């Protein structure tokens, strides 16, 4: 254990990112609640962000992505916010139409 | 404008399920033990149902087992914030049955005391209204002044809250020596202080936002529901029993110069002395009800000053109470007086014995409260205390 964590490297960040990604994917797959699915998406995006940050960090690698990593992460965050807004709007109008936010009920092509 | 506002508020982005909320009887702003069952959709109140009866003490039934003078302490406990006015209403009712002629001095004593009671009551109404809207300090400022009135009461009759001072026949005692001077000193000190309340409440921008255009009650509606007192006059109905009442009551105010506090042609009497009506305010809204009370306080000061002069120059006796076991003549009698919260009526049926066969009280707050349901429908949750507070109810009087 001490050997594995002796010095933190990019790989450790990637591992955490991978865990986030998998959790997020599973969330999207298993949740029946529309908001739960949305949370899964946020987790996935956050996992990707962790990778960007790790590759961009000068602490972890001398040959880092540099600023690009952080900027990418920044754009991901912004897009995640935009995505959340749209998804919420969809969830809302879904709720207005069906009086539920169970995505399994949304099996008809009608708003 | 008010209706436009209301429609705007009730447009919903998201329809959520209706929530049934129990406001009271243990709630900070239900003035005692009023219970309101609210149906809310988010912050919007869709239905209000007042439940009363938590303070019912069978006061009227007790009255049928006591002589009129013995029942006086029970009237204290009806509108416990204006006990003097309750005493006065019942005393006048009994005197009407007895055809009792009141000495001149007693008449002016009663006017002074009743109007002091009105000030004391309105001070609570005003302070508690501030509390309903979330400001604490005016409440304590109001109580500071009310304490001085209660001190005066204590000196006159020995009690502060439940006075039992005015009785059929006059009062339990004459005003003690030096009392009038103290009362005048109080008035001189109190009159400039009113500006503080206007600064903290009446003209405060947030206060105006919270009250103007909220809970608008038209004159027709006020009359239909049987509203009385400042609630009625706040809707612009020119009606005050001190001027329009029965002769038995109005003759008490003979010789006094006063105007009914009501907005006529867009103006209140002597309104140049007071903050102007804000443009947002609609006649009949919470702001106007509050403002009417504030102006009545000033008017009461004026009446008391006149009363003190009359009392000083009055000849004769201060009016001794009738004997405890005075036989009441057979018959029935009903008399309404203008109490701080509205018209308080007492009804008495006598079978000729010393104990009334039937006593009933007509409560002003009961009628005033009945408009809650209609006024609160469609308002926001925060408006409910604002509207109920502007009606200035006292549960002791409603439940009796």
């Amino acid at each position, binding site marked *: 254990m001490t050997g594995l964590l002796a010095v933190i490297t990019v790989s450790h960040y990637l591992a955490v990112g991978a865990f986030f990604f998998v959790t997020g994917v599973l969330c999207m797959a298993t949740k029946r609640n529309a908001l739960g699915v949305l949370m899964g998406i946020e987790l996935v995006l956050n996992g990707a962000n962790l990778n960007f940050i790790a590759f961009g960090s000068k602490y972890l690698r001398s040959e880092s992505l540099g600023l690009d990593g952080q900027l990418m992460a920044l754009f991901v965050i912004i897009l995640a916010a935009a995505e959340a807004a749209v998804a919420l709007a969809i969830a809302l109008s879904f709720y207005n139409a069906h009086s539920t936010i169970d995505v399994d009920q949304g099996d008809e092509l009608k708003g | 404008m008010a209706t436009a506002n209301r429609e705007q*508020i009730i447009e919903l982005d998201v329809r959520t399920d209706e*929530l049934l*909320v129990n406001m009271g009887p243990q*709630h*900070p*702003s239900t003035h005692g033990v009023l219970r309101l069952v609210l149906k809310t959709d*988010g*912050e919007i109140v869709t239905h209000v149902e007042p439940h009363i009866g938590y303070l019912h003490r069978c006061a009227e039934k007790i009255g049928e087992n006591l002589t009129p003078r013995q029942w006086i302490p029970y009237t204290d406990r009806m509108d416990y914030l204006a006990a003097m006015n309750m005493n006065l209403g019942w005393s006048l009712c009994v005197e009407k049955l007895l055809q009792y002629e009141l000495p001149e001095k007693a008449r002016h004593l009663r006017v002074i005391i009743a109007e002091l009671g009105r000030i004391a009551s309105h001070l609570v109404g005003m302070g508690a209204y*501030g*509390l*309903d*809207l*979330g*400001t*604490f*300090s005016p409440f*304590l*400022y109001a109580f*500071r002044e009310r304490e001085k009135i209660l001190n005066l009461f204590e000196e006159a009759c020995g009690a502060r809250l439940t006075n039992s001072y005015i009785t059929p026949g006059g009062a339990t005692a004459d005003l003690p020596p030096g009392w009038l001077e103290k009362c005048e000193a109080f008035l001189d000190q109190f009159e400039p202080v009113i500006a503080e309340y206007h600064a*903290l*409440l009446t003209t*405060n921008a*947030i*206060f105006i*936002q*919270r009250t103007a255009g909220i809970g608008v009650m038209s004159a027709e509606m006020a009359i239909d529901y049987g509203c009385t007192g400042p609630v009625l006059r706040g809707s612009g109905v020119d009606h005050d029993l001190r001027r329009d009442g029965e002769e038995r009551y109005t003759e008490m105010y003979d010789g006094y110069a006063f105007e009914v506090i009501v907005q006529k042609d867009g103006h209140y009497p002597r309104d140049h002395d007071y903050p102007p009506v804000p443009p947002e305010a609609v006649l009949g809204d919470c702001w106007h009800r509050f403002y009417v009370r504030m102006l009545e306080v000033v008017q009461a000061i004026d009446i008391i000053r006149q009363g003190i002069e009359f009392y000083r120059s009055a000849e004769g006796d201060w009016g001794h109470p009738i004997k405890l076991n005075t036989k009441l003549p057979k018959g029935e009698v009903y008399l309404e007086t203008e109490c701080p919260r509205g018209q308080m009526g007492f009804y008495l049926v006598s079978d000729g014995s010393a104990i009334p066969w039937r006593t009933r009280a007509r409560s002003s707050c009961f009628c005033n409260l009945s408009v809650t349901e209609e006024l609160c429908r469609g308002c*926001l*949750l*925060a*408006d*409910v*205390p604002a509207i109920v507070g502007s009606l200035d109810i006292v549960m002791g009087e409603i439940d009796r």
Partner: protein
Amino acid sequence: MAEFFAQYMPAGVAYTLTALISAALLLGVVGVGALFFIWAERKVAGRIQDRLGPTRTGGKFGWLQSLADGIKLLTKEDIAPADADKTLFRLAPYVSLAPSYAALLALPFADGWVGWEINTAMFFLLAVLGLEVFGVILAGYASGSKWSLFGGMRQAAQVVSYEVPLGMCGVIPVFLCGTMSLTTIGNMQAGWFTNWLIFHDPFTFLVFWVYFTCAVASVNRAPFDLAEAESELVAGFHTEYSGLRWSFFFMAEYNSMLVVSGLAAVAFFGGWNGPVPIFASWKAAGGGWEIVANLAGCINFIMKAVLGVMLMIWVRWTLPRLRIDQVITTCLKYCVPLAAFCFVGALSWQLFDLPSPNDWVPAERAGRAAVREPWARGTTGSTQSSAGTSARLAQGSEVHR
């Protein structure tokens, strides 16, 4: 401090020790701050209302009153309603307290006296302060009481909308100073009080009041205390709480008040710099003199922050409460446009180099621009952290041309 310890022990231990000491000191600020402010609130409220307030506990001014209150709260039963979501209900007070404590981390008390010298301190502070609302929402939801739920929902709507103008107000000092580091922003306002950002131009003067309004709203104080509106919602989100958990909400509230006032002190009122530069020469002397100067600066800062809190207390005991729609309207109709207007105005003022009161003060500094924009000119000024990048940035702009 870490360097000092590192002389005697391994670096890892030294840094940990430093971190622990900083954390303990900041915890002291939370604790003592809450005790003091609760006492002050009661005392000030008493005086405002023509009362005395606490008079006996602990001597003449009742200054031990809040300690006594604390002991009383400790001994009270910790109740969780039957309908409550017990775990979340128990956690909510801590969730509320933690961000407000974390915000202290980035707040500098004097030049360099800061728990965590972070480059984006202003941003971090505003972000972390916004998190405090979570505890309130959780408390509202988990209590299983309708009143609490109302309080939590109100708080969420309110805080989310007030983040916007608050952020805009916070951005103005950042732009004027060219850095988000609060230490640097504070140092740039050294000199006479005319160099304070609030006196920089009319727009910064105006925006301070917008900031103050939004800060009051974001820390949930009257007249924006809708989440706990006692006349409507009984006690709002903390209706069902008792004992120590209840008091945690208040520690969080008072601490947040201190943080937003401290932020205002740094961003608008010169931070640890007094109105008159008395300690400037001491600071330059270094060594023990510098520590004395910093201590004076720290006292100065705390006095400014406390003044802000007192202003909030004063406002609370004077004004009625707004309604929820009016709160949101105040934010969207007044605060946001005003902040945006001031943003443009303040930046234009800086851009066109319009006069500022500081120009008329006989000071050793050449002019306000030299003080404000060391990075754009490639001079390091009193900043350390942004110096390197600034030089490169200056170079970059030349390359661009």
